[in-house]
């Protein structure tokens, strides 16, 4: 969890209650950079806007936002995205 931020977007002051989405995720996308053609289809269809362009024009998921829905894997043109299993973070037994 990050601290509360105060920002202004389009001149309208808003508070961003930033929460991490890690507890949703059971799989994590990983990109095979040899196959990737940098088309940006995964960036287009990500419902959580987690995928962003990183160095050299490649696209990678921000793991704080990614929920692991594997929509990017389904839409990928070349099939360069694969989902890796991930263990859930430990929780208190009551919750």
């Amino acid at each position, binding site marked *: 969890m990050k601290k509360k931020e105060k920002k202004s*977007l*389009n001149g*309208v002051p*808003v508070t*961003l*209650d*930033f*929460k*991490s*989405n890690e507890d*949703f995720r059971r799989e994590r996308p990983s990109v095979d950079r040899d196959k990737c*053609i*940098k*088309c*940006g*289809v995964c*960036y*287009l*269809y990500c*419902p*959580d*806007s*987690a995928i962003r362009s990183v160095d050299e*024009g490649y696209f990678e998921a921000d793991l*704080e*936002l990614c*929920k*692991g*829905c*594997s*929509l990017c*894997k*389904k*839409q990928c043109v070349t099939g360069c995205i694969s989902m890796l299993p991930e263990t859930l973070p430990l929780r208190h037994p009551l919750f």
Partner: protein
Amino acid sequence: MEKYSVYVPKLLPKQENFIVGRRSCRGCGKALAIRFASKAMAECGALIKTDNKPQATGYAWDDMEFPSLVGSVVRSVRKSVSGSSYKKPTIAIDMKAFDGSLVALQSMLEKTEDILVILYDNEKYMDTLIMESKPLPFGIEYHHHAPGAKEVRFALESRNLFNFAEKLSLSYAASSSIAYPFDLVDKVKRGLKIKGTAVVHVNSPCPTGWMFAPADTVKLGALAVESGFNPVWEYKDGKFSLNMAARKPESVKEYVRAQKRYRYMSDAFIETLNEAVRIEFEKLQKICGK
């Protein structure tokens, strides 16, 4: 390969006006629809979302009931936001607007405000625990009898906006899907430019409510368009135009079988549904003059 590295997704604005870190479900179609709309608006619109839950948009927003929103909020938003550049107030709402035989929508349209309404249609009320919404989805279970061909056709008729787009005083109306994002972006941009009331209907599948794997959101949106279940059309300057043909009219069965909420449907019922979809699509083709 480097020579041809201009891909269309890169042409969209990179600024995220729909704030990241939201708590929507995995593979949410509604979030996708709002994200594309906010990308289309960039900085020429002000979005208001009407739900009971706190929202995450970079625009000015307020929680209000739909009818009361028209009188007060739209004008105040226009006063507060308008500067040198003109901005059009935009409301994103689910099919709540269709409730009570279109009373809410009609009362708004009578005033002929200069706004854009985005209807994201996932056939559910999201603020009251995924309850079935009006217009009735065709698969509803009647208490006394199984729905026949007549009821299915009535449910589809009340669901399609093109049946009454002409009666409402709209300057622009369109139907779109999240499976074709650039079509949606174009339509939202066109709705913002035209003066008067504009309505854009967006079909957005809901993995939790419709019961399918979250990865299939875009696939189901595309299936709905290809089967003719959710036709993509446009109403502009008093004329209808069909944007996409139904390439696979038999794939209604595939569309229904992909969703677990329709698991009780028999093959015979799907055939009557297919027939009803075909009749509705032919009606639209006739209106469009094709």
